[in-house]
Every structure is written in structure tokens, then in C-alpha cells.
């Protein structure tokens, strides 16, 4: 049997935010994340594609780079991979240099730099439809002649928008040859770019009128910030207003399923595992899926629209004052989904000092895993009523919790800035993309991905920890002469009671103490753990099937509820985040420092909240 021939290796490269990942998804049928801002791809991704001729290719999607003289880690990955210096990676056979056809002034310089490598290459004029709409006329044949490499128009977000590219790839793969034109090594690439633009491109105006009109308001020092605050505020209102009906349905469905299974099975360990463990635990978490999807629908729409880099620009001064840079904005924003991609996204920050500060404060951004915990506690302790002329109080509290995380991150980075010797600031250089209407297909794919990630976690780590916790809460069984509830004799019950000595100043009871431990693996597990603990403590099946929210609102004081909410603003992040910090910084010390300061902050802030609330009569 002969070994199968290795497929030809193609690499997509180009400036950040030129649509490489959208093109990668289009060509490979993959579903990598795309957004309308720079720095979404910070590592290389690989996919397979089969061209219309039936030929198979391996396609690499490389991180965006402004130059092959790298200024950041992700640019270094692109350079090393293209030159074949990346450990364990063969150099690509053909380079597909993707350029934004609406922004050739910036992108053509990079094409010239790539061309100097002398490798077979293709130039893909992406977003050619947007360029045509703005009246930018590109002489494709002329550009091809001047560059000495094949040039093709693509629309990465349209079905079949890359068909011409595929056909061209086949032609180039059949006869790969280096670029026909080369400049001397010391040539002025900026001057050559200007010459190429003059010869092959006619520009009607530097930016579209609509962009200018919107930017006059959205980048205004006062109205811009006010708009940003209003947008964020409305998002959190919508999370409560729109998700509640679906949440109620899921809640009722879970309770009915628990009762039905309980009534169909004789009492025993299997019924307890199913009803008190799996259904109560997982049902308690899955109910928050609608809120997560509403939140991400807004975040994805803002990402796609091109508004987020404007928000980074608006916040740059504030962030610089706190010791961060505007470049920290995208990693911190990514951390609202999960701190791990946020920490990885810091690779696009050139300055090591800014990068470390961003890594250390990224866990303070409210990741989506905290949302179920917040939603449970807010639902239990904050009344659902309208305040200030129609605003939902629960939505306001959720907004406040998110803001508390952001302000805490600014405060922590400000303290770090005070401690370090180098107090210099680095100017923000950011490409502001054109505004565009979010593509419904990308939005739906993004939401589908978020839902799958959440459901995979429910069926994976959350299921596993719920079952293991049920074991710890069930065994050893109570002795025959037991006077206390059976759960008090279990291993987890004993651990919970022992931990109350540490957490009593915070008002945490033993049930909460138990839930905090599996919450270190994934924060949502704190909710499923509480659901399992209370289901196992219930006097009968009907009580066990009751929703968790009323159980804790009856059993805990308001002070305890508030203290736990504050705990989760700072809670020492999940173990996977610790691993990401260790990997990105290469330092156990930094990881220990991050875990330590977050634990100290969480403990002190919760204790303060509890003690103040008790003195105000909420205990």
C-alpha cells in the first residue's frame, strides 16, 4: 500500500481584520470566530478543502500581521510560519495574501512585503462588493500586472464568494512559480504602494460618508461615552426582559421531569442519583441558557458592526489612566465570554508590562460562567420591580455587577501601575473598520456556537462534577441511630461543616461552602451543586423538585445573598484560567499571584458586604 501524497499547503495571511477567518470558514466549511475588529485570530488554525477539480489542500489561517517585522507574539507566529521557521511546521507551498479592498492604502504595503519572500502567492481582494458599493474602482488586471502575481476578487461573507479564488488556487497549484516582479531589497514600500494605488485604483473619497457621520457622534468625547453607557445598560435590561419567558418554560419543564421520574422509580440510589443529582443539578444550570444567548446576541452584533474598536478608542484615555492601554480592550472584552480566550488575546499587546497587567485583570471581567450564579442570586434576593420610570431592578443590579468587575479591574491595574518603575504610556494605534450591518448567518453561527459550548459544558464537566458531588453528599450513609439529616453524615457534609469556620465571617452556610469547591472547576457548577445539596436535604420528593431560587431566598439572609454575589465578582477563577495564565506567562509565581490576590479580594469584599449588611439590618 503506498503512502497517500501530502496535500499542498496554503496559508491565508494579511493585515488584521481583512476577512481571513471568514474566507477560511468559507473555503473549509469551518466555523471559526469572525468579528469586525483586529486581533481575533492569535494562533494558526488549519483546515482541509477540496477544490472543484477534486484536488485536496491543507489551508492555514494565520494571525493578522501589519508587517513581517513582528511587533507582537501573533505577528511573530505569522512570520515564522511563512518562512518555515515555526517548530514542527513545514513552510506553506502557496501564500494567499488577503487584502481589504476598501482599505488598500494600508493593506498593499503588506502584500509588497510578502512578495519579497519570493514564494508563489495569490492576492485575494476581499470585500470587493463593499469596495464597489463605495465607488472604489480597482483595475484588477492592472494590479495583477504591476504586482506580478495573480489577483482575484472575493466576498468572504457571501455564499460562493470564494469560487474564483478556488479556481485560481488550482491553476497556481498546477504550476507554482515565484512572483514575476521583484523590488530591490532597500525599496521604499510606502512609495511603491502610492504608485500602485495611483496606477490601478480610483478612490471617490477616503471614507464613506455614513462612517464619517456616525463617527462624529459615536467618537465624540461626551456623546460617544454616553452612547456606550446607554448601549451597555440596554443590553443588561434586555437580558432580563427577553429571556424570562423561556427561562420559566425550562424551569417548569425541569421540575415536571424531576417529579415524573421520581414518581416512576422506586426509592433507591438510582432514583436519588437521577432526581436529586442529575436532573436537579443540570436543570438548575441549563435554565440560564436563554440569558446567555440574549447577552451574546448583543455582543456578537456589536462585534460585527465595527462599533467595538470605537469603544476601545473612547476608553483609551480612561484605560491609560488606570495603567492599561486601548489594546487591552479587545482581550478584556473577550474575557466577558471566557477569561481564557481573553488571556490568549493579550498576545496582540506588544508591551510585556501592559500584557501582564491585562492578563492579571482579565479574570475580573464577568465571564459567561458567572451569569447563572448572578441570575440565581438576583432572582432570589432582588425583587422584580420597576424603578426610575420603567427600568427593571434586577437588570440594574446585573449591570451594577458587571460594572463592579470592570471598575475593580481598572483599580487593580492602577495599583499595579503605581508599583512599577516604568510609568511610561504607549499610544494606541488602532484600525477603525467601516461600519457594516451584522450578517445574520454569522450571528446565528455565533449564537449556535455559544449554545453548543454551554451545552457541552453541561453534558461534560458540569455533569461529571454534579455526579461526583452527589456521591460525596450521599456516602457514607447515615448510621441507624442518626438524629441529624443523612446529608450531615456524608463526606461532603462534613467538609462543608468544617469549612464554615473559615467562611462564617462572610455569612456562608455549609451548603454554600460545599458549592464553592466544585465551582473552582467551572463556576456554573456552584449552581448545580447548590441544587443537588438542597434536593438531597429536602424532606420529600415534592420539596426536592422545587426550584432552587425560592429555596435559597427562604433559607438565606439578604446579607448572605449579597456577600455571595460579591464573592463571585472576584472569585478565584476556575482552574482552567490558572492553567492559561501559567502557559501564557510561563511563570508559576504569576499564576499564584493572580489566584492569591483574587482570593484575598473576594474574601475581603464579601466579608465587608456581609458585615455592613448585617449592621444595616439585612442579616
Amino acid at each position, binding site marked *: 500500500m503506498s503512502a497517500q501524497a501530502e496535500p499542498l499547503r496554503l496559508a491565508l495571511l494579511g493585515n488584521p481584520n481583512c476577512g481571513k477567518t471568514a474566507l477560511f470558514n468559507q473555503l473549509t466549511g469551518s466555523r471559526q470566530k469572525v468579528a469586525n475588529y483586529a486581533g481575533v485570530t492569535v494562533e494558526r488554525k488549519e483546515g482541509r478543502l477540496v477544490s472543484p477539480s477534486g484536488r485536496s489542500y491543507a489551508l492555514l489561517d494565520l494571525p493578522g500581521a501589519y508587517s513581517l517585522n513582528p511587533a507582537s507574539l501573533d505577528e511573530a507566529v505569522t512570520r515564522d510560519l511563512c518562512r518555515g521557521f515555526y517548530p514542527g511546521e513545514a513552510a506553506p507551498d502557496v501564500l494567499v495574501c488577503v487584502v481589504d479592498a476598501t482599505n488598500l492604502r494600508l493593506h498593499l504595503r503588506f502584500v509588497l512585503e510578502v512578495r519579497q519572500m519570493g514564494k508563489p502567492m495569490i492576492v485575494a481582494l476581499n470585500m470587493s462588493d463593499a469596495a464597489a458599493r463605495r465607488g472604489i474602482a480597482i483595475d484588477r488586471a492592472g494590479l495583477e500586472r504591476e504586482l506580478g502575481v495573480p489577483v482575484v476578487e472575493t466576498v468572504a461573507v457571501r455564499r460562493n464568494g470564494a469560487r474564483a479564488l478556488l479556481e485560481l488556487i488550482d491553476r497556481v497549484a498546477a504550476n507554482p512559480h515565484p512572483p514575476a516582479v521583484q523590488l530591490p531589497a532597500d525599496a521604499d514600500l510606502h512609495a511603491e504602494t502610492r504608485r500602485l494605488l495611483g496606477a490601478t485604483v480610483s478612490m471617490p473619497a477616503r471614507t464613506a460618508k455614513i462612517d464619517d457621520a456616525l463617527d462624529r457622534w459615536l467618537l465624540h468625547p461626551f456623546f460617544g461615552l454616553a452612547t456606550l453607557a446607554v448601549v451597555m445598560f440596554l443590553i443588561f435590561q434586555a437580558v432580563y426582559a427577553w429571556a424570562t419567558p423561556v427561562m420559566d418554560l425550562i424551569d417548569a419543564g425541569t421540575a415536571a421531569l424531576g417529579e415524573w421520574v421520581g414518581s416512576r422509580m422506586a426509592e433507591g440510589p*438510582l432514583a436519588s442519583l437521577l432526581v436529586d443529582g442529575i436532573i436537579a443539578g443540570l436543570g438548575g444550570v441549563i435554565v440560564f441558557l436563554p440569558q446567555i444567548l440574549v447577552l451574546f446576541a448583543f455582543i456578537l452584533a456589536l462585534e460585527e458592526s465595527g462599533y467595538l474598536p470605537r469603544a476601545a478608542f473612547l476608553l483609551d484615555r480612561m484605560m491609560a489612566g488606570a495603567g492599561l492601554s486601548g489594546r487591552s480592550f479587545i482581550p478584556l472584552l473577550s474575557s466577558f465570554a471566557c477569561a481564557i480566550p481573553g488571556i490568549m488575546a493579550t498576545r496582540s499587546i506588544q508591551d510585556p508590562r501592559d500584557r501582564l497587567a491585562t492578563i492579571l485583570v482579565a479574570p475580573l471581567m464577568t465571564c459567561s460562567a458567572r451569569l447563572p450564579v448572578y441570575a440565581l442570586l438576583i432572582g432570589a434576593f432582588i425583587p422584580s420591580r420597576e424603578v426610575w420610570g420603567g427600568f427593571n431592578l434586577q437588570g440594574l443590579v446585573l449591570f451594577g455587577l458587571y460594572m463592579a468587575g470592570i471598575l475593580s479591574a481598572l483599580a487593580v491595574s492602577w495599583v499595579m501601575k503605581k508599583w512599577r518603575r516604568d510609568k511610561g504610556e504607549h499610544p494606541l494605534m488602532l484600525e477603525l473598520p467601516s461600519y457594516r450591518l451584522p450578517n445574520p448567518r454569522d450571528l446565528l453561527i455565533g449564537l449556535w456556537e455559544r449554545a453548543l*459550548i454551554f451545552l*457541552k459544558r453541561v453534558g461534560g*464537566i458540569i455533569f461529571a462534577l454534579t455526579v461526583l458531588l452527589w456521591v460525596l453528599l450521599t456516602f457514607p450513609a447515615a448510621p441507624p441511630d442518626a438524629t441529624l439529616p443523612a446529608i450531615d453524615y456524608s463526606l461532603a457534609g462534613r467538609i462543608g461543616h468544617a469549612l464554615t469556620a473559615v467562611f462564617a465571617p462572610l455569612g456562608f452556610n455549609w451548603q454554600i461552602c460545599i458549592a464553592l469547591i466544585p465551582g473552582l472547576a467551572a463556576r456554573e457548577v456552584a449552581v448545580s451543586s447548590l441544587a443537588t445539596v438542597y434536593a438531597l436535604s429536602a424532606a420529600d420528593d415534592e420539596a426536592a423538585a422545587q426550584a432552587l431560587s425560592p429555596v435559597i431566598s427562604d433559607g438565606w439572609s439578604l446579607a448572605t445573598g449579597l456577600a455571595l454575589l460579591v464573592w463571585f465578582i472576584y472569585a478565584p477563577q*476556575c482552574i482552567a484560567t490558572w492553567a492559561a495564565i501559567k502557559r501564557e506567562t510561563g511563570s508559576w509565581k504569576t499564576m499564584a499571584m493572580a489566584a492569591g490576590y483574587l482570593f484575598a479580594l473576594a474574601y475581603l469584599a464579601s466579608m465587608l458586604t456581609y458585615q455592613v449588611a448585617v449592621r444595616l439590618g439585612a442579616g
Partner: protein
Amino acid sequence: MTLDLPIGLQYAIVAAVVLVALWIFVRKQLPGPLRKARIALATPLVRDGRPAWMRALARRIAPPSNGGTGGSACGGCDNSSQCGPEPKKH
């Protein structure tokens, strides 16, 4: 109708579910130690002179290699240990 399984069978099912949960937990939270353990288990089984069935078993036990396509996007935070390029050695 009520499902009333013998208590022994109930405990057997519960034990199986708990083992699956334990496997998921170790795979997600402790990938490094799991990989080392799989290599340590597989290595003695592929030494010279071992029968074919033992070598086949070792191939099943051994973890997949780190090479190949790899580098897929981060699918949330529970597979973080696999995402991102390997730290540079130079």
C-alpha cells in the same frame, strides 16, 4: 407503573455513571497527568517480545500524538490546556 430494579443492579448502574463522571473530570481537568499515566501504562506493553495483542492494547492506551493538524479554536474554557500553540523552546 413503577420501575423497581434490584438494589445490586441499581448500585452497578450508579457505579458505571460515577466512573464515566470520573473519567470526564480527569480528562478535562487533569489532561497532563492523564497523558503521562497513559504513556506510563502503554510503554511496558510495546517492549520487544511482547505479543501482538499486547502491542495493540498499548496503541489503544497510548494518548494521541501532539502533532498533526491540532490548533483548533478554543471551545470554551474546559479544553484550555489544548488550545494555543506550544510555548516556544528557543
